[in-house]
């Protein structure tokens, strides 16, 4: 899988990113996507203790929370990068929010959503080399500390 590390933070080039909200989108089909927190986001939040997702069937506009996450030092929303309806939630997170830390792009996915207009949503995001460049700028601008290794990080070396 094409990827790049920026200050130790893994960026997968085949995903789409809302850099401001630190979320990623993986396209499942024409209108359905999986959504999660980026490696940068989980690193900033620290070891997560709880993740509370919205219910299946909840309609969300872009920027509205699909979940709230909390660590010992942080609590905040995970903001939806798309407009649509939550169709599936990652039940494993209710007993192990740390999955988001260990595997932000795979086992730590947060919800799946049926989007209203996927192409319009994707137009608000970046992917590939543009995503890497955007994260380089963000990490430098916000002085983000180096990411700690995530599960399977050697896969990304």
């Amino acid at each position, binding site marked *: 899988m094409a990827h790049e590390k920026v200050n130790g933070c893994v960026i997968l080039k085949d995903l789409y990113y809302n850099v401001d909200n630190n979320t990623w989108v993986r396209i499942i089909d024409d209108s359905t996507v999986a959504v999660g927190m980026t490696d940068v986001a989980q690193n900033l939040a620290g070891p997560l203790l709880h993740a509370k997702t919205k219910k299946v069937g*909840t309609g969300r506009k872009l920027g509205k929370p699909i979940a709230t996450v*909390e660590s010992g030092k942080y609590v*905040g929303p995970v903001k939806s990068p798309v407009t649509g309806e939550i169709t599936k939630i990652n039940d494993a997170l209710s007993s192990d929010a740390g999955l988001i830390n260990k595997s932000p792009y795979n086992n730590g996915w947060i919800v799946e959503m049926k989007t209203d207009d996927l192409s319009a949503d994707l137009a608000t995001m970046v992917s590939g080399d543009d995503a890497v460049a955007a994260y380089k700028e963000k990490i430098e601008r916000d002085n983000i500390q180096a990411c700690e290794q995530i599960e399977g990080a050697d896969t990304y070396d």
Partner: protein
Amino acid sequence: MEDQDHEGKKILVIQTHGVATPTRTYSPLFYAMAAAAMEMEVMVWFTMDGTNQLKKGEAEKVQLVKDSNVNLKTMLEMAMDSEVELRVCQQSLELWDMQPEDLIDGVDILGATSIIDLSLSYDHVMYF
């Protein structure tokens, strides 16, 4: 426990503890941020001893975890970044010989009658 969605509810947090009791300062702000993350409208009202943490230069001195990059000032800033509104009691400023210009940026002053109106108009009040 029934898992209700409380988006849009209004929470008023009243903080009466200040820099003399550091372990009582973080949690009300953390709860306020949690409520804001859950899409609630949140205000923290500082009164009595709670007022003194809003004096410029004071909150930076309160740090619960040694060598952490988080102190009470950063907690207050994170709360404001989360769109939590911070308000202080006008009369309490006098308790600490504080003038409006002594307050950190982003804090508005309200009079005592406002707390009564607010507590009646909000969905829930948390008192610390």
